[in-house]
């Protein structure tokens, strides 16, 4: 359950990263094709597993989920799309 929650949130974060308009502008990529509403749906979906874990009163799982998603989100933001320079 906890691992599934982490992977689901990371998938949503990856979609948010891919469609992030500011990131795309900064990297010279075409503007995001997906509308703001859909990106908001991704955001809510990303937070949903944490809410489910919290409703189950599983504090340990909530903290592990939150921490994993913080690290995962940071790592996702490091992904380089084609055309970007190496660090």
């Amino acid at each position: 359950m906890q691992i599934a929650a982490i992977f689901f949130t990371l998938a949503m974060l990856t979609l948010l990263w891919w469609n992030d308009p500011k990131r795309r502008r900064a990297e010279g990529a075409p503007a995001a094709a997906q509308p703001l509403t859909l990106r908001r749906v991704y955001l809510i979906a990303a937070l949903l597993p944490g809410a489910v874990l919290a409703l189950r009163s599983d504090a340990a799982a909530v903290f592990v989920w939150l921490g994993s998603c913080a690290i995962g989100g940071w790592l996702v933001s490091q992904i380089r799309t084609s055309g970007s320079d190496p660090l």
Partner: protein
Amino acid sequence: MIRLPRQETKLMVAIHGWSGIVLGLLLYAVVLTGMTAVFAKEINTWSSGHVAQKSAFERPIDDSLQALAARTPAEFHEAVDVFEIADGNLGLFFHLHEAAPSGEVIERGVYYEVDSAGDVVREKRGIGEEVFGPSNDDALSHFLIDTHVQLHVPEPWGLLLTGILGLAMLVAAVSGLLIHRHLFKDIFTLRRKASPVLVNRDRHSVAGTWSLPFAFILAFTGSFFSFYGTVGVPIVAMAAFGGDEQAFDDAVSVKPEKPDSRPHLTGTVNQIIADARARTGALPTFVLVERFGRADAQVTTYQDPEPGSIEPLTLVYNGATGAYERTTPSIGAKPSLGGTLTAIMEPLHFGNFAGVASKAVWYGLGFAMCYVTLTGLRLWLVRRRESIPTLAWLERAVTVIGFGLPLALLTAAVGFLCAVPLGSAVVWTPAAFLIGSAISIVAGVALPTHALLVTVHKFAIGGLLLGLPLIRLATGGPGWTSALMARQPMIVAIDIALILSGVWLLIRMITAQRSDNTAPVSLQPAE
């Protein structure tokens, strides 16, 4: 998004920058060693090659307890701390409580280490901080923890210093939150082709934003631990108990209603540990026997949180009969918000509430915070590079500490591994750390360019990461097969983590070197 007036934003930027630049390097040292110390127990197992299959609490304890009590002066039977130490050995500290000249309550007594055969392998008299010093087997993990907790500065100044650093981290987190106008809009934006200022700013703010909630948690809980004993307890004792810390301690802990000093042989600890395991599903992490050998003896077992919880459990037993009495809060007789908050401080700081999974997450968060601290320092320097060229020495100092500290920690591990078979790890672990630090400092002064300084450090770190598993094997550590046979997968896991980290770092460095060599030469404006 938080919008502050222009003047207040400028003030916040100044607070954020100057608190970082003044305390950032020390804070980095505390965070880096804290990140490593999350795995202190596992590092201890890995480095000393312990392959004990059984926890000390799985073996009968009562016989050792009785035998040691018989050779220990009765005055030290007031309380006995029982805990597991390296290689499944048992640590037992028979002690009494007394007030130091400063008013602080200290523990004085006799400390024994008992091996799995029941033989006493170490005996030491003194106060708590004297007897719990490092031993040959745990010098490396001890060194890491001491560096994190008080930077090797004597008590109470070291704790006060790390407490202040924790507060500085809180200040940086709050001011960073207030000055960042586009917290969520910028959360994925890393402009790699922009000016050095923007590149460093993006690196700093993206990592800082993702790790922000945990920066608050780790800074607050860290400060709590530093200030709890050094400031908090003395102030409360001063305000409510006329400075008597023992009276304060008595007030928040549960004592027997009617003291009964009649002798009664305490032979119930094995039974109590078995009961605690049955109730919580796990062995205790620590056992406290109070009033040993008396009819009013009390045994308290401290347990890790149950699955799904982050609050550790404290079970109280009648020491004379072994009967379970109650599950008690960590502070006070009745459950309270304060007691719960105090109890969850430790798991939230150490990340040890859900086994290796939570520890791995906390390690990753520690790494992110090290990155935030270093990129913040670099950002401050890059912004001033043009206007204050004399700050080149500070840029080198940041690199020497940023890369030199992990390098010195790795040389400390090498020193430990080489010295353990000779029985001199207590001396050689800090000595090797100092040697590694000295090499890094000399490189910082002697190497002609800053880029070369970074390259040399990264290659040295990569080489040591790759070499450590080999050094461990060469100095008599168990191989992967014997470690797995002894059900110690952590030894193999740490070896693999070191090798992968070393390979990753070296591949990055070699790739960067090749791309530098193949890049077309372009003239800079100054040329």
